[in-house]
């Protein structure tokens, strides 16, 4: 029984995720996408990187890979699944979560710390926080702008499925604090079940104390603990 970190060709945050989970005392292992999921995983991480070289659209190819059918089945069984950065793009391309992540408004790759406001504290991913807490976690993406149609956006808000919004250090959700032009400053969303979430920022890069900056991301990964 373990958390499966699915490694596609071009994933590059799979080791980071395993190390961060190890640090939290969570048994985790990398799983090569062609090998399929282990039996009865405790959880699944779709890690960051550049699966399939970001061909066509970031996450588009991996989302259609056979292992994603297994991930979908695991979701239906209630297994917690989180998609981080490229994993978030894979999750949205798989329709596990609503919306799409596309080219940053800046048209640039952005690698920087950002602040996130916790919009829901009653999910497995945010049980370590209080609602409206502000956490600092880094982003590193070129295609992280959250886009969603007006109707679907209204549903997203009505259903309370926004998990994190980009904000300033005081928790104000402003245009200036929106790094990539995301609709409604959305940085992370929930799937149909609260056990499924995707986010563009990297909690696994804000978990190990020896990395020297924030450890605010640990609370998200503690969902697997």
């Amino acid at each position, binding site marked *: 029984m373990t958390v499966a970190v699915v490694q596609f060709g071009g994933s590059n945050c799979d080791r980071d995720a395993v190390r961060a989970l190890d640090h939290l005392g969570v048994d985790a292992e990398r799983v090569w996408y062609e090998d399929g999921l282990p039996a009865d995983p405790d959880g699944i991480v779709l890690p960051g990187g550049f699966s399939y070289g970001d061909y*066509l*659209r970031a996450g*588009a190819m991996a989302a*259609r890979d056979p292992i994603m059918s297994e991930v979908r089945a695991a979701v239906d069984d209630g297994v917690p699944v989180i998609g981080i950065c490229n994993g978030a793009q894979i999750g*949205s*391309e798989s329709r596990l979560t*609503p*919306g*799409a992540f*596309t*080219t*940053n*408004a*800046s*048209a640039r790759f952005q690698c920087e710390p950002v602040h996130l406001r916790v919009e829901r504290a009653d999910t497995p991913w945010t049980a370590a926080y209080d609602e409206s807490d502000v956490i600092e976690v880094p982003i590193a993406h070129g295609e992280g*702008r959250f*886009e*969603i*149609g007006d109707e*679907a956006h209204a549903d997203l808000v009505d259903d309370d499925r926004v998990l994190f919004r980009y904000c300033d250090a005081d928790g104000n959700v402003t245009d200036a604090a929106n790094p990539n*032009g995301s609709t409604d400053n959305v940085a992370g969303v929930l799937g149909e079940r609260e056990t499924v979430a995707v986010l563009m920022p990297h909690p696994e890069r804000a978990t190990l104390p020896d990395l020297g900056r924030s450890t605010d991301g640990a609370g998200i990964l503690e969902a697997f603990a």
Partner: protein
Amino acid sequence: MTNYTATVTVRLKRGVLDPEAETTQQALERLGFELDDLRSADRFEVDLDATDADEAAERAGEMAERLLANPTIHDYDVAVAER
């Protein structure tokens, strides 16, 4: 069966920001070109055999639905020609 080329054009829905197109437009303007707007699109040319043009279009449309386009941000159209 007839040989067809189905051309699938995938473009961003109107109103969806296109930073690449904006950057391209700015570069053209720096070169001295005058233009009101610029939109970009992806074009896929799919060679396939089908019983008729409708079938070829239907299959190419399914390719767009399932992979080539993301319905959240894209519109697409399909044109079929014999090859």
